[in-house]
């Protein structure tokens, strides 16, 4: 219900969004082999083309409704990613006549999937080298001693890092120190993201290992799961169990908290930076509003006490 969540579409936020979209793109790339192939022309899957199920929806064929169905299907397929890979692997392994070969094929496949997951998380777990964008693209200094106005002022990596390690000097000393602090906090956030991604990568690989372990006896006995749904539900149960164990551990919990703490500190520093600009234009600031809130609160308490006396 927050009404205070809006942020300016700054370069910094755009960079964060890009980071998220990179994550999604990598995930999609990883999951792509496990998705059904797209039919020529795009949109419809081979299944829907063959079965005509898309046209059979109560919403009618084609148009936005069919598009929405495909979008949801795509989401479902992403959710099913690991389970579908395991389902396909089970199918391939079960087709082998020799029991030993079946198990060897299955175990190899599980290890390959684990390695694939590892490769997916590897770039996420390595904090990106901070790109130093040009700070000279601003619209010109507003006044002597103030940083240049423009999107780059919100991009601490572009603005603060070139000065890193140098003592603050001159009329813009405070601004320089503020940008250095922002740059340092931005790096802290990226490192925290990387630490957490490492934990998630390990967690998912362990879950995959345990799912493989749970399915192996079924492969041996020939009592295979009857549907992808069964494999999926087993994957969720396995992954939740692994998650509960890992997430309750100090390494995961500290990595997660460090990310939250770093983001909080970055947000505070960003606000302080914006407030400097607010003061420059005589705009009300959070600090000023907080002071007023405290005064109102004190007045209310005083009125309450007077009322109680009366």
């Amino acid at each position, binding site marked *: *219900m927050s009404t205070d969540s809006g942020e300016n579409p700054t370069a910094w936020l755009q960079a964060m969004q890009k980071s998220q979209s990179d994550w999604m793109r990598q995930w999609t790339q990883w999951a792509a082999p496990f998705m059904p192939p797209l039919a020529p022309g795009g949109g419809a899957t081979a299944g829907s083309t063959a079965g005509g199920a*898309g046209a059979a929806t109560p919403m009618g064929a084609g148009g936005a409704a069919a598009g929405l169905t495909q979008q949801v299907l795509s989401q479902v397929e992403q*959710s099913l990613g690991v389970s579908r890979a395991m389902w396909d692997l089970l199918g391939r392994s079960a087709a082998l006549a020799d029991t030993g070969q079946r198990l060897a094929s299955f175990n190899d496949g599980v290890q390959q999937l684990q390695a694939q997951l590892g490769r997916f998380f590897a770039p996420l777990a390595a904090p990106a080298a901070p790109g130093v964008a040009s700070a000279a693209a601003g619209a010109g200094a507003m006044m002597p001693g103030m940083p240049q106005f423009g999107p780059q002022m919100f991009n601490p990596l572009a603005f603060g890092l070139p000065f890193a390690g140098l003592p603050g000097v001159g009329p813009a000393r405070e601004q320089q120190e503020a940008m250095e602090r922002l740059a340092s906090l931005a790096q802290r956030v990226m490192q925290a993201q990387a630490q957490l991604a490492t934990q998630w990568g390990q967690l998912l690989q362990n879950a995959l290992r345990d799912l493989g372990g749970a399915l192996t006896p079924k492969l041996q006995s020939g009592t295979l799961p009857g549907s992808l749904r069964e494999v999926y539900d087993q994957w969720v149960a396995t992954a939740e169990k692994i998650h509960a164990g890992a997430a309750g551990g100090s390494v995961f919990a500290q990595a997660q908290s460090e990310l939250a703490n770093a983001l909080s500190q970055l*947000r505070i520093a960003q606000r302080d930076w914006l407030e400097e600009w607010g003061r420059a234009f005589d705009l009300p600031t959070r600090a000023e509003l907080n002071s007023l809130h405290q005064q109102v609160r004190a007045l209310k308490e005083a009125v309450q006490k007077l009322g109680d006396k009366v």
Partner: protein
Amino acid sequence: VSGAGAWRDLADLQQRIGVTIAGLRAAAHTQAREGCSERDAVHREDKLVLYRYRERAPRLDLPPLLIVYALVNRPTMMDLQPDRSLIRRLLELGLDVYLIDWGYPDGADRFVDLNDYINGYIDRCVRHIVQARAVPAVNLLGVCQGGTFSLCYTALHPEHVRNLVTMVTPVDFHTPDNLLSRWVRDLDVDALVEAYGVVPGELLNAAYVSLMPFRLLQQKYLHLLDAAGDQAALENFVRMEQWIFDSPDQAGEAFRQFARDFFQENRLVRGGLAIGGLPVELRRIRQPILNVFGTSDHLVPPSASRPLAKLTGCRDYTELELDVGHIGMYVSGRTQRELPRALHDWLAQR
């Protein structure tokens, strides 16, 4: 496992998605209303509203029952729909029910603290009821975080509480299976509150669903496809989703104190808790206590609720375990059948 089988699965899946989307469109009008039982606002203060529910059966000669709900969700779940309403069942059993609706805090509430909530708002609601009903004390039903508040209130103002019922209430915040508490322990709460002022409800929701991410962010929605064609089930789902994600923002100062004193320092158990400068000592609670919790509750595990048995000065302590989760405690069929009657009987005997 054949390829043809997989494609049949896919075709079936697409069919279900189409039917489910159509059902969800039809359920778009579904609203998780603020309650289905008739009630009157009897006291207002800042964003708080105290409601009294209209009788649905002749009222028994029992103290009024004041429900203190949590700050982190809306009390809609207590009176969701006619066939899923703890409040309605209690009214039908002749209880005189009041409910505190905390409203939605905003930026102006950032300095509202636990003293305001417990020694201020709750106390003034209790005093209002005591005066209006001409009774010496109320029966208090605290739910989840509201149960923790009710424990504090009873310890600080015992003269105004006749009986205390705690429902899915965390008491010991440091039990090993309490994942949420484990996560909060390393959190820099001061920085979080300074960064947000009023802590967004969305942030809390993100934490809750992260406790079981595979179930709550994926599987729950995939399983929705099982309800394809069952319009009532889809409407229930929509109503539940609206409630789950209708989380008020949290007054920053109160959040800071709750996270630090309860989650991080576990002061309710370890001692040293003070609200508004007044020490909270659970040993001062002599009132009869009924402690209700769900054995499958992942948000407030039973291990977090059970320690209450040994922490108060109460000699009339009763536990009621139900085989439900946190949300099931409000809306499951079993709860609807068993809990209202159990509450009524326990209160009527005291």
